[in-house]
């Protein structure tokens, strides 16, 4: 009797246990079924993992944070609209600080451990030159934006590496065109540029362009402060002693801010026409104390409220409003650089999905991105150079004036010129210095 009761008890407990177990399995299956991708695209993954890399520490932190903030916000917008081909994007944020070796290691970790599908970003020219070969080695779609060295696609071809934003060639050709139009009687030039790829390339392009546009102009001095230096008193003294008509500088972000703060009380901006090729960030950070009369361009060709223009394009207007509401500050050029990278990636994926009718491989996306044309918040972008890997789009230059932005207080640019992409970039098969050297003497492209 006791044995029968014990046996019955075990059977009851076992049955109840099985019911509970199957119930749990059933619920988990239902939950799992809910998380399956809703994408109707065959072979679509659960999510698209994209790394966003930019400086979150160190002197460029302001620029990098603006880029990452914009990237996150824009990806949220894309995901809310259904993602790319129904697949949501998962951003993974990485700090670009720490040097080239660290970034290469970090890139490998992103691809091999985190298994990202694409890597976007990189502000430093030194980093992009090191990462591009690794992108080809690991066969991972990599789209640069902030770094501007012309060496990237003019010295070597890459398959998986792209840059979806203007490079220094466009900026410095536009700078030369602008300054010669503003100061046609200029005769002497001094250059103050940081001694690394970005500074060297920027000066080289500007100098070549000026030699064609103003054959009689003389370069008095070229000065090469170290990347990282924030004390420029000797360079400023040298420049004041030389008394040039034009001073070209590709100093950027906090370095340019320091230069402007040290130079202004010494009368540099009264004695010389300064051309800050990527001075847009400084008009925002220095704000109302920014001296008047400085020729300023934006990294990648962007200057807030001019290009992209919120008055001319509804998407741009929406982005400005969302960014300002979320972060309590205005977007800067670096914000648009990152957005443009994301749009390039999106356009390439969508083109490949349409061509193949299924989720594409990385090689198919890469092929779709080559020579692609797409819209970026009202800016028409064409991947025209570097065998389809380097973007070209319009370039903005202006001169700091006395009027202030009604909301943010930074000085508005006057005498704004927006140079069409074809005006400041070579044909696709020609290196930019060769193109500059082919200009008729005394005339531009």
């Amino acid at each position, binding site marked *: 009797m006791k044995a029968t009761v014990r046996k019955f008890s075990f059977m009851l407990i076992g049955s109840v246990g099985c019911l509970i177990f199957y119930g749990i399995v059933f619920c988990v299956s239902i939950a799992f079924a809910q998380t399956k991708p809703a994408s109707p695209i065959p072979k679509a993954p659960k999510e698209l993992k994209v790394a966003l890399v930019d400086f979150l520490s160190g002197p460029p932190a302001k620029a990098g944070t603006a880029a990452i903030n914009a990237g996150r916000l824009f990806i949220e917008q894309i995901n809310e609209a259904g993602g790319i081909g129904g697949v949501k994007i998962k951003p993974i944020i990485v700090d670009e600080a720490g040097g080239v070796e660290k970034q290469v290691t970090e890139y490998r970790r992103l691809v091999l451990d985190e298994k990202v599908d694409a890597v976007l970003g990189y502000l430093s020219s030194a980093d992009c030159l090191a990462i591009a070969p690794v992108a080809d080695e690991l066969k991972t779609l990599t789209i640069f934006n902030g770094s501007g060295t012309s060496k990237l696609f003019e010295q070597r071809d890459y398959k998986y590496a792209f840059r979806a934003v203007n490079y220094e060639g466009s900026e410095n050709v536009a700078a030369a065109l602008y300054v010669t139009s503003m100061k046609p009687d200029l005769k002497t030039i001094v250059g103050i540029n940081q001694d690394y790829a970005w500074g060297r390339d920027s000066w080289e392009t500007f100098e070549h362009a000026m030699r064609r546009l103003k054959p009689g102009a003389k370069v008095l001095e070229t000065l090469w402060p170290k990347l990282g230096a*924030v004390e420029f*008193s000797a360079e400023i*003294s040298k420049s004041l002693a030389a008394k040039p008509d034009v001073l070209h500088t590709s100093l950027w972000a*906090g370095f340019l801010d320091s230069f402007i703060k040290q130079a202004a009380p*010494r009368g540099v901006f009264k004695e010389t026409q300064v051309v800050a090729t990527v001075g847009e960030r400084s008009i925002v950070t220095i704000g109302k104390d920014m001296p008047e009369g400085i020729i300023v361009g934006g990294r990648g060709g962007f200057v807030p409220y001019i290009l992209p223009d919120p008055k001319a394009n509804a998407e741009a207007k929406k982005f400005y409003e969302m960014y300002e509401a979320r972060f309590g500050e205005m977007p800067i050029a670096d914000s648009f650089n990152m957005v443009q990278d994301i749009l390039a990636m999106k356009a390439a994926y969508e083109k490949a999905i349409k061509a193949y009718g299924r989720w594409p491989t990385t090689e198919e996306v890469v092929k779709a991105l080559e020579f692609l044309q797409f819209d970026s918040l009202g800016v028409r972008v064409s991947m025209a150079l570097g065998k389809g890997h380097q973007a070209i789009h319009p370039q903005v230059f202006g001169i700091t004036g006395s009027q202030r932005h009604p909301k943010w207080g930074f000085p508005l640019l006057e005498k704004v010129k927006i140079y069409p992409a074809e005006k400041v970039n070579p044909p696709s098969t020609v290196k930019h210095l060769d193109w500059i050297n082919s200009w008729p003497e005394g005339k531009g492209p």
Partner: protein
Amino acid sequence: MTTLTVILIDGIIFASWLFLVSVGLTFIYGVLRILNVAHGSLYALGAYMGASMVLLYLKTGATPYLTYFVLLVAAIFMGIVAGSFIETIFLRRVYKREEEVQLLLTFSLFLILEDVIKLIWGVSPYFADKPYALLGQMRLGGVIYASYAFLLPGIALASGAIIWFIVNRTRFGKIIISVITDREICTSMGVNVPRVCTFAFIIGAILAALGGAFTAPMTALVPGIGVEVIVLAFAVVAIGGMGSVGGAVLGSLMVGLARAAAIHLFPELDLFTIYLVMSLVLLFRPQGLFGEVEVRRI
């Protein structure tokens, strides 16, 4: 002659700045025998605190000429707070440990403090340039200089004089020299060596913060300003000799003048002038100009 004058002026201005950023480092090494990598963070903290206090002070509408005093107060305050915290909580535990451990600790502190600075002050550039612009300009050697730049040699001289006075003319200075010479004997003779070390570290921290505070009006304060300073400070200290304030003076002058000459005469050499000077000095005198050869005690 004009170029020579400008090289001399630029060289002295840069040398003054170099001295301000490196004297704290060499003083701490001289007393505590610790290579303080966090020196760069103390400099940055002094800069940010100086800028913040100047901006706060200016909002009161009081006379802007007192901002120089505000910068001094900010440096002393930050030196005392940060210096005492770092020394009592962290460094005191590693005096008897290997140099590698000490280096790792101070490097870790540096990394932590860099992020602390970002947490407190954010990543946007800070500007407190009123003190820089206030003193106007002067023309020397045919070139306009901001008069503020000539404050730096004055502050550097005053710092050096105060250190010299403390070490050579005060009872505390005699105790410091004794502690440097032999800690064990000092302890046995009733000297409170830990307290002496704390005070010495605070003095070094104040000097570092002073360098930062008086540089703040000249630059845009951004995260990472301490990194560049560590490299320069180490180079100057290596040239002058670890632990020698006089060596820091001479090292700063040599580097400042060499860099100014390079910029005016051979700009391509600007990038590595300081390292060229360091290499040449260390080639012939590995312990630095005024450094002492370490004698091994048995």
